[in-house]
């Protein structure tokens, strides 16, 4: 499933991003865009700068050069709070959940930005604060239904097996009702069945909610099945940017993955 010319304007564009840590050049002059409604894959060998790229997009890292355009707004100094407010949600390569909290509370935490009731009402847990809590609880229940995690609602997230933790983490991101969803290796460490479930969820999120998705993935089969377009990074530089079919044939990409004989 993919079309070489996906319709829709760019939701997000990174332009000329360069990032270094001391002497280590993590990203060099990387530019690409993500169109509204598409699933965009970012691939590349280990250490290519894929996660760094996501960290730049949601403001964990501040690049030395370049900027981000999100919905036409030029953001040179992205911060995580700003990214979240603008509608960018993400998951992490090694799951980052709130381990001591229940699945339900994890998802409710995802709605932190959407709840505005004052401290005073919250202390009373009455009036507007209660109405607000109920409203958001309803929204969270929809996500729980969608991800089929009804049974583990009240389980502390830290007790769940890894595959389910990844699903809960996706749920927390979805609870934010994001416009752009960044997934850092959503299938890593999963068995085949869990991978198929996760693929289905990603496709459903994209088609049912119209959420734009950027994902990092190593499994080329998954990338081919899911994504509309693929960016290939190697040693912090962009070496390919096209549909999965074209990228798969590209000599540069094959060299990067398999190594070149000297």
């Amino acid at each position: 499933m993919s079309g070489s010319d996906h319709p829709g304007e760019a939701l997000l564009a990174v332009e000329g991003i360069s990032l270094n840590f001391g002497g280590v050049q993590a990203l060099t002059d990387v530019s690409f865009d993500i169109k509204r409604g598409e699933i965009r894959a970012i691939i590349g060998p280990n250490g290519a700068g894929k996660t760094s790229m996501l960290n730049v997009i949601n403001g964990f890292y501040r690049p030395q050069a370049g900027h981000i355009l999100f919905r036409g707004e030029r953001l040179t100094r992205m911060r995580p709070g700003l990214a979240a407010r603008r509608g960018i949600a993400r998951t992490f390569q090694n799951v980052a959940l709130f381990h001591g909290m229940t699945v339900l509370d994890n998802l409710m935490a995802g709605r932190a930005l959407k709840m505005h009731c004052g401290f005073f009402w919250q202390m009373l847990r009455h009036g507007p604060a209660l109405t607000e809590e109920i409203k958001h609880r309803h929204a969270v229940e929809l996500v729980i239904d969608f991800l089929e995690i009804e049974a583990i609602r009240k389980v502390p997230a830290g007790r769940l097996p890894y595959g389910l933790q990844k699903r809960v983490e996706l749920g927390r991101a979805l609870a934010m009702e994001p416009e752009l969803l960044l997934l850092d290796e959503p299938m890593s460490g999963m068995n085949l069945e869990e991978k198929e479930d996760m693929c289905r969820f990603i496709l459903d999120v994209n088609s049912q909610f119209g959420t734009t998705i950027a994902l990092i993935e190593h499994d080329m089969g998954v990338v081919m099945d899911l994504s509309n377009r693929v960016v290939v990074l190697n040693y912090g530089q962009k070496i390919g940017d096209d549909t999965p079919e074209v990228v798969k044939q590209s000599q540069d990409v094959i060299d990067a993955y398999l190594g070149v004989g000297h």
Partner: protein
Amino acid sequence: MHVFQQVLIDPFLQMAGAPDLLAQTLWEGFVSGMLYALIALGFVLIYKASGVLNFAQGIMVVFAASTLVGLHTAGVPALWAVILAVAVMLVLAIGIERLVLRPLVNRPDAVLFMATFGLSYFLVGLGELVFGGGSKQMITEQLGLPSGSIALHILRGTVLLQRLDIAAAIICAVLVVALALIFQYTRIGRALRAVADSHRAALSVGISLNQIWVLVWFTAGIVALVTGIIWGARSDVSFALQIVALKALPVLILGGFTSIPGAIVGGLIVGVSEKIFELYWGPLLGGGTESWFAYVIALIVLLFRPQGLFGEVIIERV
């Protein structure tokens, strides 16, 4: 046989023989337990939100009380002195967030813990520089705290209740219930727990670490001020009080580092049991048991229930 009699029977005969003395001891244990609980509460607040044991909590108690007394001595009316002391705690919280916590985001917990050591020395130095190192009298009367005592003629004898202690118990109860409810049932409480569990995940859902930290250190500062007022009224305000603050450690181990109700119950258990033990079993061991008994309880709890009585179960994946 003789030892058996001395340890397991005699103390209980003494208790039954003089129930008024037992009641008096229980009450005193209850009140000092309340104070342990208040100090432990300050630790729990910060531990919950930043996953860090704040070594400086004891100093914050002394610092807050010294500020209050110092302001009053300088001629500020009592009510204004309280308001200004609260303001000072807010400034302190903002300062700590800017200068200590913010530069250390995402560092290992041990680094933050060491930073709180530095903070405690800084506060001792600052406090002594501004207010002097000597011990001071708490402005009990000016704050409207009651004095004197009530004598209850019950249990074939007399039990004396200090009015101040009764007031302290009520203040503690209100403070604790309010904080426990906020943590458990509100968005802010959820945000605090989220920050404690994972900084980057909290950031990614848009929770502001900086706001949460200022809020939690400020709350801990207010708890410190209340503790300082009550403790200062019972003895006096001096930097020696920080030693007593270390008693919060066994309380925390007993109650669990992450539980507000745990801090309270832990404080009460430690306060009551060390007083009872000192009175009835102390003579068998030559007295002075109050200084170590709490740590023995903590050690036993660590062996059988490392997360404490009420703490979140420690889940570690390998």
